[in-house]
């Protein structure tokens, strides 16, 4: 299959894992990473693109029409955020790739989203728990990035904060209702937390990319965000009469392109139209 010329190896500076102190992405050898800010913007953009796509899979299948609309709304918000982020990423990269090129013409190993967001929808409980874990993290990230030293990224953050506040309200309210609902809804939402918990640590791990962009004024205190995220999660779990899962073995790798088997299938669906008709406009 013919691919655009810019689908070659990414240019830029390779940055390894952080030196000492903070947590490393240990034992992971991904493909060569690009320049730090480009990598960082891809991480932010890909999280939202992939989760937005996952939510779009519910369209026409949600349990009730009002929730169908609610999930589609959140999906569109997230995809809209990813458009801004990947557009900026393309500009930062300076290789002529726009947001569509990044979304549709990268392969799985070039995606930088956290493993959490690519996990399948499962039942409604799994979708809502995945959403809640991400929403709480995402809102805290945007609040921090709203104060960062990169003007364009701060502007994207300012707009996204409003959206994410609502997303978190939507998913929290559902967790509380499902957890404190029927025996079946309680069991399903607890199972979803237990199954997805292994993907939460990756969200807060700082590596060489984080350290490098901190030097550029994009310095997010991930440990502080983790503390506040814990407080949000614990509060909602308590109100939902659910048990916080124990921190067992954690899965990681998405930030450097090592994904679970689910991403490839998602990309096949998401990218097929653009790849079947390269250069088409819509």
């Amino acid at each position: 299959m013919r691919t655009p010329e810019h689908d070659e190896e990414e240019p830029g500076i390779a940055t390894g894992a952080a030196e000492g102190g903070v947590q490393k992405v240990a034992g992971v050898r991904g493909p060569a990473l690009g320049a730090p800010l480009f990598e960082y913007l891809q991480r932010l953009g890909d999280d939202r693109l992939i989760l937005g796509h996952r939510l779009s899979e519910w369209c026409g299948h949600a349990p009730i029409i009002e929730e169908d609309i609610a999930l589609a709304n959140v999906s569109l918000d997230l995809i809209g955020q990813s458009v801004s982020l990947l557009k900026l990423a393309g500009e930062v990269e300076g290789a002529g790739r726009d947001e569509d090129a990044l979304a549709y013409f990268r392969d799985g190993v070039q995606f930088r989203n956290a493993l959490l967001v690519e996990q399948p929808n499962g039942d409604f409980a799994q979708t809502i728990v995945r959403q809640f874990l991400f929403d709480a993290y995402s809102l805290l990230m945007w609040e921090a990035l709203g104060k960062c030293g990169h003007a364009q990224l701060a502007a994207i953050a300012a707009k996204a904060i409003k959206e994410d506040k609502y997303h978190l309200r939507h998913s929290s309210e559902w967790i509380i209702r499902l957890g404190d609902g029927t025996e079946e809804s309680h069991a399903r939402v607890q199972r979803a937390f237990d199954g997805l918990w292994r993907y939460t640590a990756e969200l807060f791990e700082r590596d060489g990319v984080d350290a490098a962009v901190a030097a550029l004024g994009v310095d997010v205190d991930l440990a502080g965000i983790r503390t506040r995220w814990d407080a949000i999660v614990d509060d909602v779990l308590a109100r939902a009469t659910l048990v916080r899962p124990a921190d067992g073995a954690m899965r990681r790798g998405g930030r450097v392109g090592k994904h679970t088997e689910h991403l490839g299938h998602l990309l096949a669906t998401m990218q097929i139209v653009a790849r079947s008709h390269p250069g088409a406009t819509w």
Partner: protein
Amino acid sequence: MTVNGKDDSHWPLWEVFTQGGQGQPFEHAGSVHATDAEHAMQNARDVYTRRGEAVNLWVVPSWAITASAPSEAGPFFDPGNDKPYRHPQFYKVPRGVKVF
């Protein structure tokens, strides 16, 4: 979750009212199904205010609204129609008064 005697599989209906701007009257926009008031508020926000239609929302349980019966519309509303003195339409408006 049981609300107003409804069972789990049947969420109650809520009527949604939107206010287009500060000081404007609330208008009926439509209805949503929801488990409770907070949930109804969220659903109403998603269904009826996505394009900036409202600055305020009311959600009211449908069962709380007493409606006039369509079959009674005649006797209920007609008596006012043949009483011209209830329609102040034979006053001359002085020149210089703006007619809205």
